[in-house]
């Protein structure tokens, strides 16, 4: 603690605690009468309570810095997406949840590649990098490795993250850097004006496929599962509440979070997800996953998913089946997550399964950057801090006089 004298004769000093879990026994090197605790968000209010009870002999004063609002996360840059683009809703929800995270704005970094979606960082008043096509995941890997304390959000598209950057996406997931990947899936290349993407459905007519696409599309979540992603979820631009909840879950997960967001491109692929997002069809076609709850959907919550062996099937709730017969969702079940992720039927097919939304899978696995840091600490513990002169000298020298 550096103590300095003020004009009024009082002395002040400041202490910065890097951890709240283990308070040092003797916090103040000098007798102290008043404790001033500035705090940013209400989360820390609990911490003030702890401090107060620990130092009850002092009078405490807390100064609450006004909590940030979504507006504080907006920039002065004009948002340039097409009117009606799903990206607007995603931006709004991200700006909404950011002030609630308890992370100082300067510690948040948004890294994107290239695409309509990748314009995102310009609209967020945090640190940000709009990089090159497909490489946001790789850049973020280096940034997280270098600065593990930063909260890093990767914004990428279905082309950016799964086509040109597919390689980096899978490697980021398997390494499990603690970052959040937001994959804006509009099943089209928006920025380049409407070519099919790796998630576009077969036979799709686009500028580059006048006779229909002959590519078989990716199921992005299956890819993430295959790459041993430790958090895998899906949401949609048109359901702000669910989107917010999924953003919060992504952030809460320690490890690489892969969140696929169905995003409407109303210019080049309008209505791609309509069947899941519109009021009229959503209840029948979208299945919302909730931890520990049975898989129920339908206009009147009248249907459920039951596992018949390894095969999921739709059943009517009523005389024959009740909620007790249904698949109970468990985000931690690795094997069932594989089946759930494969519920990816074309909604045009008769007898198709509904498309699940929510957290499919979550597991705890060591994060790359933590182990990387640990290895450095271990090396220093074993050999001592690197000594440049010793290194340059090496083991065998000779002297010429």
């Amino acid at each position, binding site marked *: 603690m550096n103590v300095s004298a003020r004009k009024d004769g009082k002395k002040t000093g400041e202490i910065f605690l890097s951890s709240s879990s283990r308070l040092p026994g003797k916090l103040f090197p000098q007798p102290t009468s008043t404790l001033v605790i500035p705090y940013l968000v209400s989360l820390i209010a609990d911490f003030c309570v702890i401090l107060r009870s620990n130092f009850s002999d002092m009078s405490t004063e807390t100064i609450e810095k006004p909590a940030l609002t979504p507006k504080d996360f907006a920039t002065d840059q004009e948002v340039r997406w097409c009117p009606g683009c799903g990206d607007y809703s995603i931006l709004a929800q991200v700006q909404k949840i950011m002030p609630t995270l308890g992370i100082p704005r300067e510690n948040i970094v948004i890294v994107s590649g290239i695409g309509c979606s990748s314009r995102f960082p*310009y609209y967020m008043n945090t640190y940000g990098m709009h990089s090159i096509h497909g490489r946001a995941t790789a850049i973020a890997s280096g940034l*997280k490795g*270098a600065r593990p304390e930063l909260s890093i959000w990767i914004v990428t598209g279905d082309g950016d993250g799964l086509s040109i950057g597919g390689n*980096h996406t899978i490697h980021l997931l398997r390494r499990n850097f603690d970052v959040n990947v937001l994959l804006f899936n509009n099943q089209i290349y928006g920025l380049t004006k409407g070519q099919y993407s790796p998630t576009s459905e077969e036979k799709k007519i686009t500028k580059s496929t006048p006779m229909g696409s002959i590519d078989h599309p990716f199921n992005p979540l299956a890819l993430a599962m295959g790459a041993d992603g430790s958090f895998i979820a899906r949401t949609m631009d048109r359901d702000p509440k669910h989107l917010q909840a999924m953003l919060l879950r992504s952030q809460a997960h320690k490890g690489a979070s892969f969140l696929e967001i169905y995003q409407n491109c109303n210019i080049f692929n309008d209505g791609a997800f309509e069947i899941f997002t519109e009021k009229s069809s959503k209840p029948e076609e979208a299945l919302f996953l909730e931890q520990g709850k049975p898989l129920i959907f339908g206009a009147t919550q009248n249907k459920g998913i039951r596992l018949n062996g390894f095969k999921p099937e739709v059943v009517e709730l009523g005389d024959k089946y009740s909620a007790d017969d249904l698949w109970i969702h468990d985000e931690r079940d690795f094997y069932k997550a594989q089946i759930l992720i494969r519920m990816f039927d074309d909604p045009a097919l008769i007898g198709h399964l509904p498309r699940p939304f929510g957290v499919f899978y979550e597991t705890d696995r060591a994060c790359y950057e933590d182990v990387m840091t640990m290895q450095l600490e271990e090396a*220093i513990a074993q050999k001592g801090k*690197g000594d*440049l002169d010793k290194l340059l*000298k090496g083991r065998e020298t000779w002297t010429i006089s």
Partner: protein
Amino acid sequence: MADQQEVLNEVVIKFAGDSGDGMQLTGSQFTNNTAMLGLDLATFPDFPAEIRAPIGTLPGVSGFQLRFSSDRIFTPGDECDVLVAMNAAALKVNLKSLKKGGRIIANTDGFDSKNLRLANYPDGVNPLEDHSLDSYEVVTMDVTKMTREALKEIQMGTKEKDRAKNMFVLGFLYWMYNRDMDNTITFLTEKFGKKPEILESNIKALRSGYNYGDTTETFTHRFIVEKAKMEPGTYRSIMGNQALAYGLIAAGQKSGLPLFLGSYPITPASDILHELSRHKSFGIKTFQAEDEIAAIASAIGASYGGNFGLTTTSGPGMALKGEAMGLAVMLEIPLLIVDVQRGGPSTGLPTKTEQSDLLQAYYGRNGECPMPVISASTPSDCFEAAYEAVRISIQHMTPVILLSDGYIANGAEPWKFPKSEDLKPIEVNFKTQLWEGEDKFQPYLRDEKLVRPWVIPGTAGLEHRIGGLEKQNITGNISYDPDNHQLMVKIRQEKVDKIAQHIPHQKLDSGDQKGKVLVLGWGSTYGAIKSACVELRANGFPVSHAHLRYVRPFPENLGDILRNFDHVLIPELNNGQLIKIIRDVYMVDAKGYNKIMGVPFTRHELIDAIKAVAEEK
């Protein structure tokens, strides 16, 4: 016992055998032993591209050339005095580089009918027996048999025993050059300490080789090369890639920035990744990425975060990194790209040397994309070149390319290593707050060097966004304005050009300031050019030599130097790259001398080339 000794001025030995014969280890052990005696030396390892080409075949031959001398030397030598041939293929591949009258030490077991056939000798022909080697002094010994004999009491398979063959040969050479073997015994003990049989077999073989020389009196006398007259000081032996890694570590320490290496393995650059990975106690983070693009991208991320990000690669990897280098140029952040060049194009000649990535380093990116280029000229010079490259990168907020090549990367030489206190400090200034009178942070507001501030995430109040789209001058906001783009292109160029004001003037390495012929070189041709020039001048032929470290931008006085000579000769291990730039920048009628054979210049061919330009009118 041969206790007579012949003092020689210098010796060039080539150890050659199958790639499984351990010739690289034998060579490097002999090198260390030589270095410790205070001799000047230079090495040239030459290995096959395939890890295990079929045993006994010509492509499977692995060689290690070592020259040691009591004079200062600058190359591993054009020809060798002694050729150690572990098999017929090794002899066939290397005979052309043996001096007439030179010595061949041949392992007869490697010249049996099977080995002769694999080496493509016609049926019934054995060079050891058909007098075709009469102009050489041939010493034959059955290394395999004698090694097995020496190890007969050790309980291990014949195959394992045969692995110690190289130690027998090494022992023999230690006898021949009157050395003591302590350093190798220490080395073996550290390496095989946990495997007592292997340790014992290696030491036994080593000693038997020595004793074999002693008892058979193969030569009537032994050979000695005296200490070199080198600058006083303390020396060690160092290889180029190792020196380069040390230069990076030193720059990290002196700048106080943690190093972050993103790299994807590729010959001949991988050893830098290996070396840096061993020094985690210096706080160095190494990341073996999924490809070269991710490697450079991760380094960009690390630099953006306030580490010093760097990436190491060779030609094919450089090609992949181009787009990301452009991003770094736009972001204007520190970053180092190390290119240890090899023969190209495409996969080319992975284990052979070449200087053919210069134009790629200069121009190989989309758009107007200037980057400083630095080159290293000898194994130990890799240290200083790396240090300087990092310094420029940090102080001028720019990605920098450092060019090395396979020849110096794997070559070794004595190094009068510096003390850390003698290294120039590298100052780092993160901007952490608004200056007085500044009401808004302007990410692209520049100082007199045209350098923008380095602000890293975590700095409250200076949040901002950067990216690869063209930026408005000063604000850094996206701008498609035509005048602004022209302005920014010019600024980025000028910023790199201005570095010339912050680097030393070009000096002549040797020769007069003015005259008939100037040889201008860059990179690993240093030793060969220097040797050629020294020899020519010793014979009364006036020639000067300048060697470039700063290839982009050039030192400010380079033009003046060039114009002081009637002829400028630019020898390069490529099809003429620096020469294009020199002609373009200075409009001088430089002449090229080019070799694109995957091997370095010899002194002789350069002498001829220099004489030839001098004769032109």
